[in-house]
């Protein structure tokens, strides 16, 4: 899992939400992924999609892109069990050479009003910085290779889980911001409409009084 091999097929794991009303949360990520895929690949056979979230799955299915694995209905506060089977199958895709590299796309939570579309290469695990790491003299039982064999898939799975949590945090804050601005807009609309209504009412009353006064004056 550490060495890269010639890339015939690329896996894209895309984390979106199940429902809309979350502002630009889904559209910005899907636009980014779609653009990247069109730039990198000429045919639909060169990549597979792993979709988390209904919006993302529907997006790719409607564009005839091959969605290999999907998970929808992830709870608002996902636990590892909710995602572990998908994470395992995703890592197995790589181990069984059904894809030769794996990228992950999700909205990284920066602050409640800011989320960043993030691309992260998960497999092969390439970005290890061993140059200045302090290597404690560990004893490996039975040996380092066998430990790596168990450790690396688990590491990759936790990377996916971490990204999902990050994505969920972004989703909640994006939805919060979207709902807040919707509330603000509605309040503004209510204010301006009540003002208009009161003016119209006042105008009608004034007119009625004028008519009555005019009528009374004509009788005298």
């Amino acid at each position, binding site marked *: 899992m550490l060495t890269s091999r010639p890339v015939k097929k690329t896996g894209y794991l895309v984390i979106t939400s199940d429902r809309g009303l979350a502002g630009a949360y889904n559209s910005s990520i899907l636009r980014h992924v779609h653009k990247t895929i069109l730039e990198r690949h000429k045919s639909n056979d060169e990549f597979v999609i792993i979709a988390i979230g209904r919006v993302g799955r529907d997006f790719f299915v409607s564009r005839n892109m091959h969605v290999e694995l999907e998970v929808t209905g992830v709870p608002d506060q996902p636990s*590892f069990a909710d995602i572990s089977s998908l994470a395992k199958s995703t890592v197995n895709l790589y181990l069984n050479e059904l894809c030769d590299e794996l990228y992950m796309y999700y909205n990284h939570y920066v602050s409640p009003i800011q989320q960043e579309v993030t691309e992260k290469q998960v497999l092969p695990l390439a970005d290890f910085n061993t140059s200045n790491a302090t290597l404690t003299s560990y004893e*490996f*039982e*039975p040996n380092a290779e*066998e*430990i790596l064999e*168990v*450790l690396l898939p688990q590491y990759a799975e936790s990377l996916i*889980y971490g990204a999902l949590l990050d994505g969920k945090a972004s989703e909640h804050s994006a939805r919060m911001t979207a709902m807040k601005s919707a509330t603000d807009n509605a309040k503004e609309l209510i204010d301006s409409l009540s003002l208009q209504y009161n003016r119209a009412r006042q105008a009608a009353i004034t007119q009625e009084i004028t008519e009555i006064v005019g009528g009374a004056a004509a009788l005298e």
Partner: protein
Amino acid sequence: MKTIKVNVVTPDGPVYDAEVEMVSTKAKSGELGIMAGHVPTVAPLTIGAVRLKNGSNTDYVAVNGGFLEVRPDVVTILAQSAERAETIDLARAQAAKARAEQRLQNNDGSNDAKRANLALKRAINRIQIAEMR
């Protein structure tokens, strides 16, 4: 007696965190007991019990695979899932065991059988540990 800090951690959060005298685990290569002052070690674990001994008191934690990391001052157990004996839902574990056995009987040696076998092992492990409390 000298004690050593033990952490059992899963992706869903810490499960156990205490000072103990001895940790006994079942590593892939066999039983492994750790006391304070052990050499730094890393070892993969199998589905089994982690025994945490402190004086006359022994705690049990069911772990599903994962790793044992021994550092001079702390022992960390990283597992995909882990449960303390007190929190194991015995009825649920028995249901899981029955389900896995059912699945094994209906199967013919494919990938599913392997998974059912693992599930069965996990369920038996949890039942055994729940009975130890």
